[in-house]
């Protein structure tokens, strides 16, 4: 069983500015990975998704990669 990345690294708040961490959960097209693939808890997956969306809005992450 895959362990939750955020609880393993003791991350309580998923920040939209930490793009190096957020990039781990994007596929090559820039889409957010499925929770089955990420192995993240449901609560953290929801927070992760909103963090990625905030980062996209400010141009830190792409909406899609061609």
């Amino acid at each position, binding site marked *: 069983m895959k362990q939750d990345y955020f609880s393993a690294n003791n*991350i309580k708040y998923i*920040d*939209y*500015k*930490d793009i190096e961490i957020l990039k781990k959960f994007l596929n090559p097209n820039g889409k957010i990975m499925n929770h089955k693939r990420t192995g993240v808890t449901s609560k953290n997956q929801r927070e992760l998704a909103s963090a990625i969306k905030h980062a996209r809005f*400010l*141009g830190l992450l792409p*909406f899609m990669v061609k």
Partner: protein
Amino acid sequence: MESMQDAEKEVEQNANSRVYELGYLLVPTIKEEDIVISYGNLKELILSFGGEIVSDEMPKIISLAYTMRKVASNVRSKFNTAYFGWIKFTMNAQKVLELKKKIDLDPNFVRFFILKTAKENTIAAKRFVRGNMVHRKSPTIKRSGDNKEVISINKDEIDKEIDAMVAV
């Protein structure tokens, strides 16, 4: 009595205040020398709305992940780079709406948002974890070096033992 009431009001305001984070992109047409001025103005604006600054970062120029468009006073402009910065502050919930309306009118902003957030510094903790993981790797390399020395000592002992065996 008035001072008592003022004090009560202050306590109420503190109870209503929350931690917010303002993330923003400033237009790249601002010169690098002038960025400090607009950064200072933004801080003053937050303070004027009764906010207290918790932490912040100076706006830095970044290349955007995609081209942004903005229409300001009938002029359409495209941006591939912008100054990205953020400020964490505590403020009354109603004042934040006023602050948002004020920033909406500012032509220096490409985009911005205001989030509810935690007071603790969230980025530094993550960097520390990553640094730790890097340090963990280095001792394993040293250990392999130590093992070689141990093996060389063992060889002499083994030779002596073999000599002893042959003698018997």
